[in-house]
């Protein structure tokens, strides 16, 4: 066989694999780790899952800062459990990324040196305890809108991780809303704190769904691969429609003068977030970007001795077992 024939055979084989992959996606079945998949599919997934994992890990910081200052033991226990969940979500997702051939240590490096990103929302500061409630209500609420459709994502390990995560996010959102209800039943000063936190987090929460559809070039491909199931604007609309009645019940005003019910569309109309701000925050120029990464780096470096000790202990035990055998 000459080189030409070999190449033609390889091409045929690849076309057959691609056909099988497309048919699996077409039948709405899941792709599993050792299936053949196009390089672009693998790369897109690793990037999206890693970015998602990084968001969970960095997401521990804004609320974690309030653990020692929680107003009661009850709130402290809840907040601890919530922040521990975020760590867990990060780990489920790093595991899912590893099934695609990514290496967790390398992903951590890429987060710390800025080669990979995390959600822009975590670059805003948490100024009062009301922020803890608003993050649970709005930020986790937006995350749920984004994540529920990902439970049907075409990549099996990602979809399964999202199912676990969504179950736990529901606790996150409800504890936040309950915290805010409690504050709204308190003093005028407490009600003002809640309104102030809503004013600061509303627009960044809307930005969590990403740029508008006409400025989101990779969306169409991700939707064809069924990694994504709905467009950014669709999910943003869904979030607004869900949230307005919750805000009314709570007694807060969402800071958007254009927000009103549109009978014809059957949806709420709302104003456009400041997309320049989103671009700035994503490219590193948000209020807390440097602080978040510095904290993550310090935690990683200060934990090095623990990892080394665990590895040394495991090696010693393994040597002991070999000697005994």
């Amino acid at each position: 066989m000459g080189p030409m024939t070999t190449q033609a055979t390889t091409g045929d084989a690849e076309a057959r694999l691609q056909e099988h992959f497309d048919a699996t996606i077409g039948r709405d079945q899941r792709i599993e780790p050792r299936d053949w998949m196009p390089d672009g599919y693998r790369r897109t997934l690793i990037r999206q899952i890693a970015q998602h994992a990084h968001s969970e890990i960095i997401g521990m910081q804004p609320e974690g800062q309030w653990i020692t200052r929680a107003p009661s033991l009850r709130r402290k226990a809840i907040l601890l459990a919530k922040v521990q969940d975020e760590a867990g979500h990060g780990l489920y997702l790093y595991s899912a990324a590893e099934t695609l051939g990514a290496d967790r240590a390398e992903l951590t490096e890429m987060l710390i040196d800025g080669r990979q990103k995390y959600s822009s929302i975590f670059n805003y500061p948490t100024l009062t305890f009301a922020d803890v409630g608003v993050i649970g209500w709005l930020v986790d609420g937006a995350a749920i809108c984004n994540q529920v459709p990902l439970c049907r994502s075409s990549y099996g390990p990602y979809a399964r991780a999202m199912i676990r995560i969504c179950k736990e996010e529901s606790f996150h959102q409800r504890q936040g809303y309950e915290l805010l209800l409690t504050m709204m039943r308190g003093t005028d000063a407490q009600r003002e704190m809640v309104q102030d936190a809503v004013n600061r987090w509303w627009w960044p929460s809307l930005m969590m769904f990403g740029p508008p559809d006409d400025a989101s070039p990779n969306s169409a491909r991700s939707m064809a691969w069924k990694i994504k199931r709905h467009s950014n604007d669709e999910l943003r609309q869904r979030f607004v429609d869900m949230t307005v009645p919750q805000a009314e019940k709570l007694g807060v005003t969402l800071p958007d003068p254009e927000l009103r019910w549109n009978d014809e569309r059957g949806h709420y109309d709302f104003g456009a977030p400041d997309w320049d701000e989103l671009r700035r925050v994503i490219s590193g120029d948000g209020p807390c970007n440097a602080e978040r990464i510095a904290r993550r780096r310090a935690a990683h470096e200060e934990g090095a001795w623990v990892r080394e000790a665990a590895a040394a202990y495991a090696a010693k035990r393994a040597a002991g077992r070999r000697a005994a055998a």
Partner: protein
Amino acid sequence: MSDAGTELYEVFVRGKRGLNHVHVGSLRAADPRMALTRARDLYTRRNEGVSIWVVRSADITASTPDEKDPFFAPSGDKVYRHPTFYAIPDDVPHI
């Protein structure tokens, strides 16, 4: 600076007595003991299990996941292994 010294483990959890252990995901750990405590913290924070197995991912021997794999061909053409292969008159009770 890395996870050097850790290995990937697959985690299986028995949800309650009477059920099989089911694969729930994976994690990294330095040794099996650590994998077990990490699995408890990561996969059973809400009473999801009464028993956990961990196994080094590298120790698993697996078929290829492809459903057209010839490995599964022997079961493809043996319809007589299924109860529906046998025609029984409707008026025969309890069968």
